[in-house]
């Protein structure tokens, strides 16, 4: 297949990043996605999955490593430039402007374009997602969870991104809405975009992915074709089987998911010290 020889749209290597420069959460992570591919980052809680996707999106400071978007270095670019350069990021929460109408949300999505071009693309979006067109003058706050995700993705699509970053797109969605969203993700890849997402729902996400990256303690553990990872007994045992447990732990731990990882790191004396 030509995909084998194709250059990746996104290739990040040696990423060291964190919310504080003295406390890196990622210790040299690699990730690459090709056009038309869906890649999913999975891993236990506190592995640095969201940090990685945010670092690529320019929201978390990268202290070492490079991020390339189609051979162009975008490491440390301000987030608002990235949208114009062709990388669209859909955050996990607060990913639509609730107080603005659907149309206004989409207008902001196209703010990097000239007015006429932006309006033409918004029209295309309405054709593709008629639900958004019907509700264009409603406030985004009136949408359901699944509809909000569609709007959030649509807003990113206006810039026709070559890379789409999704941070836990199915979080808080009903199983049916989650399945619909995965279908939408597949459709976006079929249109040629490279998609990198972080998912708690690891098994379902891997099923619709081409490749998977397993992260643990801020480092790459495993990576490869998603089907292989799904079949891998070790992955199944460590990450997929413990999904519900991890979720509970996440709720409990709240904003301090690195605590456990830090303890583990401390035990392995050679590790880079405490992280939480």
């Amino acid at each position, binding site marked *: 297949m030509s995909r084998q020889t194709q250059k990746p749209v996104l290739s990040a290597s040696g990423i060291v990043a964190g919310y504080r420069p003295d406390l890196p959460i990622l210790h040299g992570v690699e990730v690459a996605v090709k056009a038309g591919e869906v890649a999913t980052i999975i891993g236990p809680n506190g592995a640095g999955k969201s940090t990685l996707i945010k670092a690529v*999106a320019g*929201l978390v400071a990268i202290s070492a490593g490079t991020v390339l978007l189609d051979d162009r270095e975008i490491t440390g670019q*301000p*987030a*608002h430039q*990235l*949208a*114009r350069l062709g990388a669209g*990021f859909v*955050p996990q929460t*607060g*990913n*639509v*402007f*609730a*107080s*603005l109408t659907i149309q*206004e949300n989409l*207008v*902001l*999505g196209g*703010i*990097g374009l000239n*007015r006429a071009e932006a309006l033409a693309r918004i029209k295309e979006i309405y054709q593709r997602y008629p639900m958004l067109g019907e509700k264009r003058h409603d406030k985004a706050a009136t949408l359901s969870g699944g509809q909000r995700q569609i709007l959030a993705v649509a*807003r990113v699509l206006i*810039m026709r991104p070559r890379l789409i970053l999704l941070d836990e797109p199915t979080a808080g969605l009903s199983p049916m809405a989650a399945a619909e969203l995965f279908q939408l993700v597949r459709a976006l890849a079929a249109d040629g975009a490279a998609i990198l997402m972080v998912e708690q729902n690891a098994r379902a996400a891997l099923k619709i992915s081409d490749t998977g990256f397993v992260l643990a303690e801020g480092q790459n553990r495993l990576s490869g074709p998603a089907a292989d990872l799904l079949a891998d007994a070790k992955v199944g045992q460590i990450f997929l089987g413990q999904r519900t447990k991890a979720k509970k732990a996440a709720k409990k731990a709240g904003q301090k998911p690195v605590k456990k990882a830090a303890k583990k790191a401390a035990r392995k004396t050679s590790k880079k010290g405490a992280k939480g």
Partner: protein
Amino acid sequence: MFMQHLADGILSGAIVALGAIGLSFTMKILRFANFSHSELLTWGGYLALIFLAFAGSFADLSASNIGPFSFGWPMLFAMLGSALATSLLAVLLHYLVFRRLARTAGHMTLVFASFGIALLLRHLVLLFWGHDPIYYSNELQFAILIPGGARVMPDQVFLLGLTILVVVFLHLFLTRSRTGIAMRGVAENPELARITGVNVDWIIIWVWVIGASGAAISGVLYGLTVQLRPELGFSLILPLFAAAILGGAGSLYGAVLGGLIVGLSENLSVMVIPSTFKPAVPFLLILVILYFRPDGMFGERK
């Protein structure tokens, strides 16, 4: 008497409303209470003097009056010039003080810095223009009797008309222009706005320009209908905050309605309480509103 107080209330409410719009926007988008905002009203009023003098070197000021008003096109030119100059002042303060502090310090630091700036600005006005009241024009105006028995000056009618015009313009700006929509987006979620591709730093400049322009126009209108004094802004600080808080930070209509309520309640209160207590009315309003609606009338619940 009631009609007179009503008319006075609406007029002083319009001045407060214009000033409160900017305060409300900066409070919402820059996320701190800017106590130096009221000094921008003072500066707006005084800076207009410079532009008026400039226009006066080209035309006879008293001969160019329009209709029944005490002023002509030089005053309109001065108002525009003052709005631009006051915006420049606000943007300068943003770069020199607020932007730097916002990066490293907390919100309270910004609030205290704004106190300092307010003091500085107020005393610079004293230094440059002295403490005596100044009038744009010494011409006498005849009041017009409006139905209901109240008397208003033609300039006051202009004040009201201009306020309505500014509010309509801002409404269109916020709902039709992409910069206006982006401003509302930044107000709701700055990080998402940034991700979406909005240049948030640029939007913040716009917030200052709109806030300062509103303040300048408000200050000029105050100077036109009352007088220019160095403590013009300082005396309005409570009404301005009351209006912005009443309306809910970030809401255009909230600030306008808040301004009207403050103006009306101040002026109508003199019918029941001694007028020396008038300045306490905004205080009471803040207390009452915060008790029932902590986020203001139009503010979103958090």
